[in-house]
């Protein structure tokens, strides 16, 4: 299978990258990309259920906070804190999902937005143990210290790469499993899905919890990598950025959020040297990309390929659009 070979080749290339390019800034950007990809893919899991969340940074924050508290106050190892943080985000997401999934469409957009802000507000309000607006600083790197403090960013790059690959693999499996196909069905028509026996609220909730789980994972990694978290980090803008990755990349398959996160992070980085015009350029690119490719990069690529195939076959399906 060529696609499998392609993926293996890609992973090998990614694994060799730090050996070839020994530039700490570049590695740092790669680590940020890894975090962004995990976030975008986790949001995509909601997307294939037809849900859009503006509060994904809230779950990331919960994961990051859990790791920060466990490692800094509890002295726990990162390797224990990481899964616990993801689980904590998932645990919080269950009741939140139960309540917020009662609303649909735009209302869900905004209730998730509100949730993200409440998380920020709560962590900011309670100085103990959350550090208030100071946030928590000096979060230790993972053990063994010899590797994670002595070798620059390379170990973090590999750790992030591993998390990213695992997340992508698991979410890809989910999206291609029967469970995933039901999520796609719900996205297409939740009324019809319900009528044939799908527990629509239940499936949505599981997708919501799963998505929160991986966001928590990203948050945990963020905390140990940057070493500093505060309510200034996990903002509505952060959630929005994640959503932008997915929309610009496209929902059609998991390549969408991945390509979106990678490209936009790089684009934004590429414009960094223009200082005050960076945000402007980013905004304009966003506008252009959605206008030119409303189904995202992946959608545009698929459309292009289909058109060329159709031209080759010269078969035009007689689509009857009545009713």
């Amino acid at each position, binding site marked *: 299978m060529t696609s499998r070979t392609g993926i293996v080749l890609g992973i090998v290339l990614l694994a060799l990258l730090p050996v070839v390019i020994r530039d700490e800034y570049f590695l740092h950007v790669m680590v940020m990309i890894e975090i962004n990809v995990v976030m975008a893919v986790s949001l995509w899991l909601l997307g294939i259920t037809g849900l859009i969340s503006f509060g994904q940074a809230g779950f990331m924050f919960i994961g990051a906070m859990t790791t920060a508290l466990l490692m800094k106050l509890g002295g726990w190892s990162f390797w224990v804190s990481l899964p616990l943080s993801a689980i904590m985000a998932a645990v919080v997401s269950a009741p939140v999902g139960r309540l917020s999934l009662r609303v649909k469409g735009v209302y869900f957009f905004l209730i998730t937005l509100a949730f993200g802000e409440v998380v920020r507000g709560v962590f900011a309000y309670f100085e103990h143990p959350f550090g208030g607006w100071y946030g928590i600083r000096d979060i230790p790197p993972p053990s063994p210290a010899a590797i994670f403090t002595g070798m620059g960013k390379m170990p973090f790059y590999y750790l992030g790469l591993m998390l990213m690959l695992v997340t992508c693999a698991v979410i890809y499996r*989910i999206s291609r499993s029967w469970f995933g196909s039901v999520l796609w069905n719900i996205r297409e028509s939740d009324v019809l899905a319900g009528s044939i026996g799908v527990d629509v609220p239940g499936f949505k909730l599981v997708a919501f919890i799963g998505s929160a789980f991986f966001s928590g994972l990203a948050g945990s990694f963020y905390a140990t990598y940057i070493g500093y978290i505060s309510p200034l980090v996990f903002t509505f803008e952060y959630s929005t950025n994640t959503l932008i990755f997915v929309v610009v990349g496209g929902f059609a398959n998991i390549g969408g959020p991945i390509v979106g996160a990678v490209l936009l992070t790089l684009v934004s980085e590429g414009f960094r040297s223009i200082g005050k015009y960076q945000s402007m350029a980013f905004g304009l690119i966003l506008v252009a990309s959605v206008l030119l490719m409303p189904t995202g990069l992946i959608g545009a690529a698929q459309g292009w390929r289909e058109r060329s195939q159709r031209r080759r076959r010269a078969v035009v399906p007689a689509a009857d659009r009545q009713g």
Partner: protein
Amino acid sequence: MALLEVTGLTRRFGGLVAVNDVSLTVETGEIHGLIGPNGAGKTTLFNVISGSLPASGGRVMFDGADVTGLPIHKLASRGMVRTFQHSQLFLNFSVYRNVLAGMHIHASSGFWAGLIDSRSTRQRNAALAERAHELVRFVGLGGLEDAVAGSLPHGHKRILQVAIGLGPQPKLLLMDEPVAGMNHADVDRMMQLVRTLPTARGTTVVLVEHNMKAVMNTCDRISVLQFGRKIAAGLPEEVAADQAVIDAYLGVFDDDVA
């Protein structure tokens, strides 16, 4: 024992009583028609019975159990499935995948098993695929498996909807205006399909329909609603002769035969 027994069902919207104390019995194996002028409360009654809307009062017994207020997906897994007035399809998916989706309740091998792609899942899925193909052929869409649902002609879309509804192997299929907006040939085709359901699939049918000719020719028994109340019930010819029904429709019969 009756398959579906509705007793004193009522549904209010604010001050409006859309369904008022309706009782209804559907026997196993019959095709039961539900007719009435526009606004008689047929679709609301459907929505309440099928769990799409909560009831304001009354009781729904299905297959010997009280199912009042159960959510729609639970009813589906108990064997009561509904179709919709407007074509509800997974428009961007193929015909085959639409039908396959309908078999959801027989596919639930569990979340983890579904992820891991174990041998038993694969076997079960192979069996499902076989059944889906069989169902596509049964409703007469054979050869169109790969067509995108959204690109089908209207008549095919409605047929496909029936196929999806048959996926859970329901004991009772509630069909909301299955021939609305169809041409003659498609109506005949649909009604032929409906007539085979009790014998070929073991599925009892309740259908709401405006097309009188179709209802009279297809249904074993008919109930008539007006202003949210049941005003008559019985064999097609009895109902057609019922003075209350004639008054209710008053000339509508002729116009309505499409």
